[in-house]
């Protein structure tokens, strides 16, 4: 046991302590921006999805029309996406985007599900009374959400997405061929 306190270990622990102290200091400053790059890429993709999907029902209403994006995720995720939306306009200028927390939203054009399990998914579908034009984007294929049209997956350290064409065809939406070119089609 005494060897634990030998000189080199003392020096090591002292340096480690200082390093960790500085790291924690930074993390406390940086706590709100703790999202991984993977999460940020997902949000950037969702942002592009909005631009490449046409909601037919909304095309007939007064312009610019509103796209409600409902997020089933933590607050920092939501905050980052709001900032992302605030910095750019989606696709054409006819769409304005509103970002909502899923559990407080009543109707959504696009839902991003992140943590939902089978039980809450079914409850959510009931609460939302999902219409024929709600596009559901699932965080990974491991999330149980039977109505998901787009599912993210990782391939060779790159973020990819799969489009369920059958599901998309059943919705009242059009999806751009530009988006489909980059997707894995199910």
């Amino acid at each position, binding site marked *: 046991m005494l060897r634990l306190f030998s000189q080199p270990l003392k020096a*090591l622990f002292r*340096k480690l302590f200082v390093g960790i102290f500085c790291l924690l200091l930074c993390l406390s400053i940086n706590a709100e921006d703790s999202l991984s790059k993977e999460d940020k890429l997902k949000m950037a993709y969702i*942002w592009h999805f909005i631009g490449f999907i046409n909601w037919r029902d909304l095309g007939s209403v007064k312009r610019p029309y509103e796209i409600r994006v409902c997020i089933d995720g933590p607050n920092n995720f939501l905050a980052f996406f709001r900032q992302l*939306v605030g910095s750019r306009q989606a696709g054409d200028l006819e769409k304005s985007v509103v970002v909502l927390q899923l559990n407080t939203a009543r109707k959504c054009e696009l839902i991003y599900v992140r943590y939902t399990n089978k039980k809450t998914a079914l409850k959510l579908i009931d609460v939302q009374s999902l219409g024929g034009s709600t596009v559901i984007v699932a965080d990974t294929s491991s999330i149980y959400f039977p109505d998901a049209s787009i599912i993210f997956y990782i391939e060779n350290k790159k973020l990819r997405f799969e489009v369920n064409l059958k599901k998309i065809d059943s919705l009242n939406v059009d999806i751009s061929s530009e988006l489909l070119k980059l997707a894995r089609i199910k």
Partner: protein
Amino acid sequence: MYPLAYRVVYEVFKVKYIQLMLIIFSANCFAQSTPSEMAEMSLQELFFEDIYEVGATSPWTLAFKFKAVEFKGYLDGTQPVSNDEVLWDGPMGVEPRTAQNFPVVPTVITQNATVLSLGYKLSSQWQWSISVPYINQETDHISSVPGYSNFKIKTSGIGDVTAVGLYSWYSSNEGVWGFSFGVSLPTGSIDEEGDTPRPTEDDKEPLPYTMQLGSGTYDFPFAINYQYGGVHDISIGLSARIRTGTNDRDYRLGNNYGLNSRYQFDLSPKLQPFIGLEFEYSEKIHGQDDSLIIVGLPVSPYPASITNPKLFGGKKIHLKLGLLWRLAKDHRLTVEIGAPLYKKLNGPQPKENWQTTINISSVL
């Protein structure tokens, strides 16, 4: 005990360490991808973007490494030898002097190096770096010399400065070849002195090879590495440190050759544990520092095993475990611990017990 300049450098270095940590981690606070940056990316750009925070925003990199190694006990070949067996009890004792026992025996050797490296990326394939080590060494001894039954020697100072160039070649979508070559300059001292049992007027005698801070020669490190970037993150590499000429004390440390492999996996996008195996072969010392020998000693002129150039080198296989933590974009922390699984040493020679490395790198 040590020249004032050394003590001042050491104290300044301790303070600089804290400042450096604060600079690295405070830079981290402002190094995240911003929402507007992500919004600016096209769909095609997103498609080719790595999910990890890679891709330097600046060509300059600063890295800080702390490495500690402890040697304790002895091996002759693969056989353990006790300190008592290595210690010769002197001309008045009952034990006969052989070439395998000595009047002075180092019991614990600890070495730690703090290395500051500055790198510059010339292109996507070429980069270079320069590393400056600060070394602290300490050795506990037992001896049969009256008045020196237990004593300790310490040395510290700047070691050999190394400049390395690295070329990366992307052979396919899944693999990267890395070739590195460099030069190590003889900036570390080979004239360290201390109070040893050898009788002199000022109690300052030249210290053995292990207590010197540099090699005293121009050395050339080379490495070749292949990293498979597919589903499994595996890398293998060959390395060598070729030493040339003879230093001012008429010796040259032995060449080192290594073969290493590492498997890394994703615990999360930010945390990658890894496990590695490393085979290392090092040669004996060529030549000899004659100031370390005592001609009057019976059988062998070497007062300690670490003064005999033939009792250096051997083969080792290390197991290493570690964790890479991608703190943020352009900031990485790696912690690694290692221990030898197999050792065959030209002995009797002090054996390595463990080693640990902490590395922090940051794009400036």
